[in-house]
């Protein structure tokens, strides 16, 4: 019984980083695809400082942001450059969270940014291209 429990615990632990990575990948993919398919529907989320940052139109910035999240979300899903992609996405989410400010959505995004940072710190798990390709 003791060995069965420890074996189950070991197997469960092995899947923890996999679930974390795929869940965060799905998160970034959902928001990325949503912005790519309907950039005008997300304009209300674009802060003024970002809209005035470049010559690109506000919808263009949403579109760029959407593709950024789709590409990096896909890289996270397959586990390609997992540590660096997660770090980039964490920094990206920290900027969004601070832009939204102290409210329910901002607190949630800040926690998701910390979660993504934890994924970066953990690095590539056993079910990533990073590990399987070598």
């Amino acid at each position, binding site marked *: 019984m003791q060995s069965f429990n420890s074996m189950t615990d070991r197997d469960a632990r092995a899947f923890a980083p996999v679930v974390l990575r795929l869940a965060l990948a799905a998160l970034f993919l959902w928001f990325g695809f949503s912005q790519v398919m*309907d950039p005008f*529907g*997300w304009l209300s989320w674009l802060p003024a400082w970002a809209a005035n940052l470049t010559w690109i139109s506000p919808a263009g910035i949403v579109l760029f942001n959407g593709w950024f999240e789709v590409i990096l979300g896909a890289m996270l899903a397959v586990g390609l450059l997992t540590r660096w992609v997660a770090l980039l996405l964490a920094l990206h989410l920290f900027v969004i969270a601070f832009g939204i400010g102290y*409210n329910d*959505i901002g607190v949630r995004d800040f926690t998701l940014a910390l979660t993504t940072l934890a994924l970066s710190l953990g690095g590539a798990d056993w079910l990533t*291209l990073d590990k399987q390709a070598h």
Partner: protein
Amino acid sequence: MNASTPLAIGLILVVAVGGLVYMQTRNPHPLPTNPQMVPTDAQEDTTLPADSTATTTPPVVQVDAIVQ
């Protein structure tokens, strides 16, 4: 296990989420909005209800004020 397993899992996830969002885009519902980024000078809705004209009283004109 080789590299094709994580590649397959990742691609399935990308296609599934992309398909989900695509279906949602075809059958849209209002997205959540950030209360801090919605313009605060939005016009107040002054539209009267359809049956309000029946009970609306005309404004009282101050005749004395006009004469003066």
